[in-house]
């Protein structure tokens, strides 16, 4: 098995290939273009409640929360080479923590977000110490175990409402002591704020030296050790960061749904989150976000009216994507294609 990336940008021996500017960041027009695009996208997203009716706006809130979860999966799967089914555990932990904070402590959204994120971070740190000792398929299964155990725990606990879920969560408020928000549009803005914050932090991370170290582990952990890196620490930091991000997404989820159930930390959600990353293009940020939107739209919108055939439609989309989009959605843009690399599950393959 070879992990050689067969994609070739320039091959003519001797041709000068200038270093891409984003490789080691030294500024550059492209970065500004990307930033500009991001700002435009954000503005468009922010304007949505002004011209869309409540239902699509709710849908969009759900998409944003889920997309942030997907980004957290991508940080591990796409950037660090650790395929995970575990992020929903932290997503759920953040969601429950925010909900419980709302019920027993305060409706303040910031407090809920911070509490949810910290709880998820703590959980990710503790479980991460165990999980990051493994890699590949074994890592996938350990994270599946984390998800399953968390799920079962949520189902069994009275505090979280057991299998009936945590209901009766009051609406969030933004200002200290302010009125709870009930209107879909305002809720959406809050979710958008959390989403933008999370994505911005992720983008900064993957472009930082820390991000390069993560990719180094993806491509050759042994080699990272040989050049003097403490790979365990890099993985643990990445795992904890991704867990916090998932928890943050969970708080956004609670804010808009005002209800959390064990299903929010279940295998099914973990699976579509992981597939969204693959579908979008592991190792890019925007691809998985777009994929997350498509997946949720198919599941919730088309699935609801397709007489129970939602699963089949999603299945077809995944199968087609494998053949039509060999580098995921992100592969449609050549510029980032180089960042997309295959992630072996079996541990890194190596030519002999």
């Amino acid at each position: 098995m070879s992990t050689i990336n067969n994609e070739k940008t320039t091959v003519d021996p001797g041709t000068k290939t200038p270093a891409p500017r984003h490789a080691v960041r030294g500024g550059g027009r492209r970065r500004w273009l990307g930033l500009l695009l991001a700002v435009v996208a954000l503005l468009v997203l922010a304007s949505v409640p002004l011209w869309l009716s409540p239902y699509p706006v709710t849908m969009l809130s759900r998409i944003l929360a889920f997309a942030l979860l997907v980004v957290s999966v991508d940080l591990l799967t796409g950037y660090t080479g650790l395929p995970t089914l575990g992020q929903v555990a932290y997503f759920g932990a953040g969601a429950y923590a925010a909900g419980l904070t709302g019920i027993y402590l305060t409706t303040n959204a910031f407090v809920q977000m911070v509490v949810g994120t910290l709880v998820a971070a703590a959980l990710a740190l503790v479980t991460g110490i165990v999980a990051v000792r493994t890699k590949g398929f074994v890592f996938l299964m350990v994270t599946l175990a984390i998800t399953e155990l968390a799920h079962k725990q949520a189902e069994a606990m009275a505090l979280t409402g057991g299998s009936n879920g945590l209901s009766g969560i009051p609406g969030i408020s933004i200002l200290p002591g302010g009125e709870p928000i009930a209107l879909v549009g305002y809720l959406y803005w809050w979710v958008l704020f959390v989403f933008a914050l999370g994505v911005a932090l992720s983008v900064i991370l993957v472009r930082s030296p820390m991000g390069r170290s993560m990719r180094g582990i993806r491509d050759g952990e042994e080699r990272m050790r040989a050049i003097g890196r403490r790979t365990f620490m890099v993985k643990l930091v990445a795992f904890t960061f991704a867990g916090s991000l998932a928890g943050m997404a969970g708080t956004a989820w609670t804010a808009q749904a005002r209800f959390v159930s064990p299903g929010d930390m279940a295998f099914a959600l973990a699976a579509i989150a992981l597939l969204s990353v693959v579908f979008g293009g592991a190792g890019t940020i925007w691809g998985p976000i777009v994929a997350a939107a498509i997946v949720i739209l198919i599941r919730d919108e088309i699935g609801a009216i397709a007489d129970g055939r939602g699963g089949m439609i999603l299945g077809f989309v995944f199968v087609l994507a494998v053949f039509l989009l060999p580098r995921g959605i992100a592969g449609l843009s050549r510029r980032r294609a180089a960042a997309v690399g295959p992630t072996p599950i079996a541990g890194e393959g190596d030519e002999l």
Partner: protein
Amino acid sequence: MLLEVKDLVAGYDGSRVLNGVNLSLDTGESVAVLGRNGVGKTTLMESIMGLVRPSSGQVLINGIDLARKPPSALAKAGVGIVPQGRRVFASLTVEEHLLISARKRGEWTVKSVMELMPRLGERRTNLGSQLSGGEQQMLAIGRALVGNPKLLVLDEPSDGLAPAVVGQVGDVLTRLRSTGLAVLIVEQDLRLAFDVAERVLVMQKGEIVHSSSTAEFRADGKRAHALLGVG
């Protein structure tokens, strides 16, 4: 002609590495391909074998065009390869390598290969991944031999071998030649290349820029150095 390559063009994902290569090789003949790193020697060998799919051109074995056929078709037509980087199977024992490769009857059997390279016999139950670099190289050569090919393609066979073993490989190849086997060899160790080959081709940037007999090539060291980019 045993092997004829005509206007072979090949590359990776739409970019060209070989820009129309022509060469031919008769039964019992042996040719060395020389050139600097990255000029396309391996790409040429692998597209002859079908491991890289040529985008145009022909690879004729005994007059039949096998370009763009799977490698197994070429193997069946009598081409054996010792690839660059050895490509031994990590999870097969030495013996298993030879067993699964012995698909044609002939002079070479598992036994005779192990006699030729006793080290392989000693490491019979080691997995490919548990061999030293040189042992892997021997195994790759042995694997090609037990297939009893008519044309042996070798891509840097001396890579990683100790001098004594390189000498042995040279002896073996010379002996093989006398049995009518044709040899196409890419080699950085010029001594070995000259020992084995009667003709020398030099590649630059995906093209063959020089072709002469070995003796002729050796006669003019200055020109040879220029061709190989040394100095």
